[in-house]
């Protein structure tokens, strides 16, 4: 469906930089989000390589113990708060209005505000490295009382995380209003693209959970600076209280970090299987179920504190496996009986399903409370985190980039380089993270800067470090593909993949305000209907 470009107002030309800084266009903001978050993915990645280099051999002194604590804390903080959470806001900003057939987000200026809160927060958090005492070093979980002991870098971290939380809270409100109020004619809630559904549930989680984190962080700030005693037992406070409020946010946050990735995968699999998503409604209800249950499992991070109602939280944690299992069925059922092709986005989507499967299974170990007593805070958990957040979320990020690159930038990424990228990343990922299961079973605690030679952990750690560097190498073909794409003119048609959803019904890239006209929406696949008529129903 071709679109006539709307002529730009002439007479006054803003410089491009000013244009980007002042834009309230959801597509430009989406692109800014993507640049910003991918930058911090690189920063977090470099910190990860420092971590892996330090751990490659026993008794290493490459970075000192103090520096190590800062490095892994900032690795996780960058990856979670500055990359994976806002990257979904980036995809969401670009895609939600397009997918529901709207001209923009409901509140474009608020949208710009949410984005522009990120850079100062990122700078503030990382400026910790140049102040006295260094950056935050209490882990991204900032457990009290340890978090009361460290330097001013910790205060900077607290303020930065509060600001990031505000950004995602107002962003969430914006997404919700956009999806509730601005859908195209004919698009009922149950015809909304599945990515939008996952953004909707994510936004709900953000709206409900993030303020709790903000409250906890303010309490911590008061404890540190103004003699508050919320978490200090000597003044009548309670140490474990911090963990309760922190995880009350941070477990739902785990789903904030993965649900949109599931949404992306559920867009890609049907397109390249040429079938609808198997069990659309089941998928939607499973997503809502994960969101709801997500609020009742926080204490599974605290089984070893001795102050948790173990059976309840063990049960709820197991229960969250049910909607997760439903999704695995959704994806398998979509592939089953399809006509499957394997361009790069599809490879990443299938990679996601297989790695997320492992991340789900190794998670049940921690739900079985007595097994968690052994595995908690060991490298087994580090393996689990990364099978979910890297094998899951990051694979979805790249799948989404390869998939929507033609739409966003009007050019396609080179297929061969893309496949090479996928292959290297898939192998590197498993080499880096699978051995961590064994290290964890053998008792290697997480967050340690050094281990003794006598522990016998060196070989597996060396292997894991090799895998980490292979992941870094896998970024080279990706970067070459991006540069090559930008050196060519925009040549992509509206719908290069034979896709299903409305963003493919306009030009690549779309004009201001997105659409000249919309195809009728009679199912969750309006473009499929337009292509095939009723032949397939």
């Amino acid at each position, binding site marked *: 469906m071709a679109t006539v470009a709307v002529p730009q107002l002439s007479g006054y030309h803003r410089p491009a930089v000013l244009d980007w800084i002042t834009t309230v266009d959801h597509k430009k903001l989406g692109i800014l989000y993507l640049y910003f978050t991918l930058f911090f993915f690189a920063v977090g990645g470099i910190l990860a390589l420092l971590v892996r280099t330090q751990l490659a051999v026993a008794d290493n002194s490459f970075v000192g*113990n103090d520096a190590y*604590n800062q490095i892994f804390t900032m690795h996780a903080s960058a990856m979670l708060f500055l990359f994976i959470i806002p990257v979904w806001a980036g995809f969401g900003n670009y895609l939600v209005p397009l997918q529901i057939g709207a001209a923009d987000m409901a509140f474009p200026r608020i949208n710009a505000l949410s984005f522009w809160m990120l850079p100062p927060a990122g700078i503030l958090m990382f400026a910790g490295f140049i102040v006295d005492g260094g950056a935050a070093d209490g882990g991204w979980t900032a457990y009290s*009382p*340890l978090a009361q*002991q460290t330097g001013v870098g910790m205060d900077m971290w607290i303020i930065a995380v509060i600001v990031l939380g505000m950004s995602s809270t107002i962003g969430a409100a914006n997404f919700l209003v956009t999806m509730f109020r601005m859908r195209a004619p004919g698009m009922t809630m149950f015809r909304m693209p599945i990515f939008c559904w996952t953004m909707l549930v994510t936004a709900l989680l953000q709206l409900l959970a993030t303020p709790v984190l903000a409250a906890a962080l303010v309490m911590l700030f008061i404890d540190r600076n103004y003699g508050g005693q919320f978490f200090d*037992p*000597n003044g009548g406070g*309670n140490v474990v209280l911090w963990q309760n409020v922190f995880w009350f946010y941070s477990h739902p946050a785990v789903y904030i970090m993965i649900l949109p990735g599931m949404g992306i995968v559920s867009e890609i699999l049907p397109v390249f*299987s*040429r*079938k*609808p998503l*198997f*069990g659309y409604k*089941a998928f939607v209800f499973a997503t809502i179920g994960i969101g709801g249950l997500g609020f009742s499992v926080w204490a599974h991070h605290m089984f*070893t*504190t*001795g*102050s948790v109602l173990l*059976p309840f939280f*063990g049960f709820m944690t*197991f229960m969250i*496996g*049910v909607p997760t*299992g*439903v999704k695995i069925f*959704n994806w*398998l*059922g979509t*592939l*089953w*009986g*399809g*006509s*499957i092709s394997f361009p790069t986005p599809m490879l990443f989507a299938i990679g996601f399903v*297989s790695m997320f*499967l*492992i991340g789900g299974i*190794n998670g*049940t*170990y921690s*739900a*079985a*409370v*007595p*097994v968690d007593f*052994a595995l*908690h805070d*060991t490298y087994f958990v580090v393996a689990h985190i990364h099978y979910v957040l890297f094998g899951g979320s990051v694979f979805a990020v790249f799948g989404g980039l390869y998939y929507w690159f033609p739409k966003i930038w009007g050019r396609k990424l080179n297929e061969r380089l893309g496949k090479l990228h996928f292959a290297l990343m898939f192998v590197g990922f498993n080499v880096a993270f699978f051995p961590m299961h064994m290290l964890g*079973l*053998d*008792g290697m*605690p997480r*967050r*340690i800067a*050094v281990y*003794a030679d006598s*522990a016998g952990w060196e070989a597996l750690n060396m292997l894991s470090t090799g895998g980490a560097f292979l992941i870094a190498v896998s970024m080279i073909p990706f970067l070459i593909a991006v540069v090559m794409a930008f050196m060519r003119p925009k040549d992509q048609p509206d719908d290069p993949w034979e896709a299903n959803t409305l963003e493919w019904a306009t030009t690549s890239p779309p004009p201001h305000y997105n659409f000249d006209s919309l195809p009728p929406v009679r199912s969750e696949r309006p473009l499929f209907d337009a292509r*095939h008529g009723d032949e*397939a129903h």
Partner: protein
Amino acid sequence: MLRMSLPRRVRLLAAATAAGLLALLATGTASAIQPGGITDEARLMNELFWIVTIAGLIVFALVAAALVYAIIRYRRKGDELPPQFHGGGKIEVAMVGVPILIVIGLFTISMITLVQIDDKADDDALTIDVTGFQFSWQFAYNLNDLGTNTDPNAEGTIAVIGTPANDPILYMPVDEPVEFLLKSNDVIHSFYVVDFLYKLDLIPGRVNSFTVTARETGDFRAQCAELCGTNHALMRFTVRVVERDEFDAWVADEAARQLGEGTLVSSSGTQGD
């Protein structure tokens, strides 16, 4: 490589074998690595570990086989549209039912294990007072609370205190319940003995406790498992499980050294090294 012309059954077999091999590989490495545990409680937990592992591997093998099979079997061959199947009906009931059955099963089994290992020790079990501090450990023994061989009139405590450079050794007798009381006055630490398959946090403002009965003698590696500051990685210690008479001898020696000769009336009399 598998070619598209392979008959269906061969592809199915290939998928199943690939998944099975992967699962076997994982089991092999897990059993090579996973310590079986040296306490009664650890052995129970180890059984649970294997139940979870086997359940996980079955799920993995089935799903992985289905995935590999689908990818091979349903490669795009021509341009025609496959049947547009939306799901629904019985299969969606199975989609919810199967995971529910699996998780309820695993939950029930874990709770049984939890109850078994939670059995409280009787009051006359040996008690060891563990205090974690930045960055080492103190293990204290009250002379009138030494378990099976206690002189109720003995007075005083002996303590082993480590430093980051000098890991302390925790002595405990084999074949009898030992209760650990865990305390901290600075930040949170976690008492983690790998071969107990167990850890429990030391939390300022509260006392945590647990009880185990060790069944093997020897030296076992242990360390702090909760980030506690700069030298967290150096909070290591050794658990030395010894026969009862060796334990008594060690206590007598330490008591003599720390509290002066004659403070401890040791009834066992055997002198260790």
